[in-house]
Each structure stands twice: as C-alpha cells, then as structure tokens.
C-alpha cells in the first residue's frame, strides 16, 4: 500500500448531510468521507486517500497540464528517442 498515494475518483452520490459520498473504483462502489472537503457535488472528481476525499481534482487544470506535455515548440526537427 502506498501511504501517501491518493487516487482520483468520481463522486456518484452525496449523502444528505454532505459528510459522506459513494464513489466507484474499478466497478466497486465504496463509501467515503467528505469531512475534509467542501462543496462537493455529484460528478466531481476528488482525490481519495484512506477513505477520505482530500481535495477536488480541477479538471480544467488537468487538461491544461496535458496540453503542456504535448506542446512541441521548436522540437519538431529532433529525431525521436531510440
């Protein structure tokens, strides 16, 4: 087990008191705690760690980061790594 590892998961339901939620991990539904986060809605991605949502995953920022990886300014002419 990776102690500091947290994984992004999508919220499926939020409990009435906003303190708990269900997520699906590899098709298995799991109850998690929302005690450490605020304003979480169904459909949001959160970082799940030892049964707790630690923070929301900002999906706009995620796309920006991926776009940055793909950016190839001035490198088109370099031959690929063998």
């Amino acid at each position, binding site marked *: 087990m990776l*102690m*500091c590892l947290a994984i992004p*998961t999508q919220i499926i339901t939020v409990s009435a008191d906003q303190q708990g939620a269900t997520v699906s991990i590899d098709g298995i539904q799991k109850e998690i705690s929302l005690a450490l986060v605020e304003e979480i809605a169904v459909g949001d991605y959160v970082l799940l*760690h*030892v049964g707790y949502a630690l923070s929301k995953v900002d999906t706009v920022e995620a796309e920006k980061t991926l776009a940055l990886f793909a950016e190839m300014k001035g490198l088109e002419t370099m031959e690929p790594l063998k």
Partner: protein
Amino acid sequence: MRYIDEFRSGELAQKLARKIRHATDPNRQYNLMEFCGGHTHAIFRYGVPDLLPKNVHFVHGPGCPVCVLPTARIDQALYLLEQEDVILCSYGDLLRVPASHKKSLLKAKAQGSDVRMVYSTQDALKIARENPEREVVFFAIGFETTTPPTAVAIKQAATEGLSNFSVFCNHVLTPAAIQNILESPEVREIGTVSIDGFFGPSHVSAIIGSRPYEFFAEEFQRPVVIAGFEPLDVMQSTLMLIQQLNEGRYEVENEYHRVVSRDGNLKAQALVAELFELRPLFEWRGLGQVPYSALRIKQPFNEFDTEQRFNIPEIESKEIKGCECPAILRGAKRPRDCKLFGTVCTPENPMGSCMVSSEGACAAYWSYGRFRNVSPESDLE
C-alpha cells in the same frame, strides 16, 4: 481510469523525453531529489531514468512513512500489546515492518495479539464502537496527507464519547525533514550527497499547499517543483527543474495544478491545528532527532492520546546489523550498496523498513530496478 491513464501515455512520454534532452546541458550534472516515496515508486515502475539523459540523476529521499518510523515506536506498540488487553489497529504496511529482536506486529498477531489491519480511521472507530469493553488503539503514521483523517477520527470519538478509543500518534512533517536533509553534514560539509533541486510532494502539498516550500527554496537556493505522482508528471517536473537550474533560478513551481494550490486545503489545516501541536523533538529513522518535525495530540484531547492513557516506557531499539536504511533515507547510499539487498532481504522477508513498503527505495529497486542495467527500456505504453 480518468486522470490516471492520460498521465501515463507513452507517446507524450517520448515528447517529454525529447524536450528534456533538448533542455539538458551536457556539461553539468543534475541531481534531483524526490522527497516522496510515491515518486520513487513511479520513477522505477515506469522506467523513467531510461528515458532521460545520463547526467540527470534521481536521489531518493526519506518520504516513505513506514520507512522513517523509528523501530522504537513499533517496539512500544508491541510492549503495549504485551501489557494491556488492547486491539491495535494500523494501516497494512506497518504490520510487516521489522521491530527489535526479529519481532513485528504481524508476528505478534500470529502469536495471538489482537492486531487488525484497517483501511481507514473510520474502520478503527467502528471497531471501537463494536467493542465497548475493549481498548482500541489506532497506530497512526504518515505525513501531512494522512494526518487529517486521524484528526477527523479523534474529533468524532470526542463527539460520540467513544472513550475506549485512542491514537498512538506518529504523524510527521515534510518541510522539517527536507530542511534537515539540506542541513545534514553529508549535503553541507562532506559533499558526498549533492542535491541541486527537489520534486515537492504531491499529496502532502494537496493539504499544506505550495507555500511552505518557499522558505527553503530561498534559504537554501534550491528549486522546488511540486510534482504529481504519475510518470508524465515526474517527467514534466524534471524538465521544469532542469530549466530552473539552467537559468540559475530557485523558485517554487507547481506542476500539479490540478490538485495543489498555494494555500492548500484550509479546512483540513484548521482541523489539524485544532487537534495537534508540535513535538519539540521526534526521532526519524535515518535522520535522527529532528526538532519540531512531528505532531502530538493537544491537551483538550489527551483522553484520546494512547501515550497519555497508558504507561509506555522509552525503549532502546535494536536494528538489524548491516541494514543501510538510515543512509539510504538520507540519500547517501543506494539499495545496491547494502550487502543484504536481494539476498537476505527481499520484500517477502524484509530486514529493514525500506524493503517493506512499495514506496521504500529498496522495495522499488527490487521490484522494478534490478534488471535495468541489463536491458534498459521503459515500461510506459
């Protein structure tokens, strides 16, 4: 899974590898320390070093929670199990960590002690509710990522009046440890370890934010890039560190914007501040006594503090002879420098904590790094 698979793309990895090659100055060395075991794990699992120029080196840091826990703390838990009729709950990896005299929590369990593996602090609370006549102790370890869930549990126990629940608190702090490494004689005077820049923690930073690193980027003139745990995150962060070093900058930059902000998770921080206070001194395996580097439970919640509740003596631990974990945790040695590596010590039969958790450098070398010299290739798809 979404937000995982995209960050493991082999095609993007090749692009990033080219960018890194392009940016690297062949006339200098780049020694980059990844503080977190999560990064160590990703670097080895995906064969990231094979994609990078030879003068870019990863130096493995101490950011593996079970690795840095001093043996004496496990000895103390074993003492408690012998003296009192307690149910001891802990996260999985901890059970296998070798204690003094060839003991471990797993062995104690096999011999009849009530040791239970839990996934969450909520599980530990549940065990306490179901066993009101028994004392339930949660063996809490971990960095800033894992502390808030412990805080929630204590608070909940207080609210519910769950008076048979207590926490054996071993939570430690990342910035204090990084500072300790930078001030260590190996880095400062002897110069045996050279660290040019840091990968900042991913999920620790989700809680504490990027701000706490600003102090030592400035003070020690080393760049820090907060990096996600996926292989492409590590590669992009490598590029960012190389660029900073080339330009002579030493700033805190954030590659992991999708999760980390400058301020972090304020709700979690407030909760931790309400429940915990700094210990003046705490021992880390490998780093020794580090001032203000760990937390203990605050006075109003003493009732839930295992150390206040039971009489647990200081115990002098006995380390396995030949285990190089302490030097490895400081970045001063590599797993292969240990004579026990791969022969006496394997993940099935660990002699030291660095071989237990998949975040430990020895376990990562064993699982993914052993054959690297023979057939270098990356595992990125």
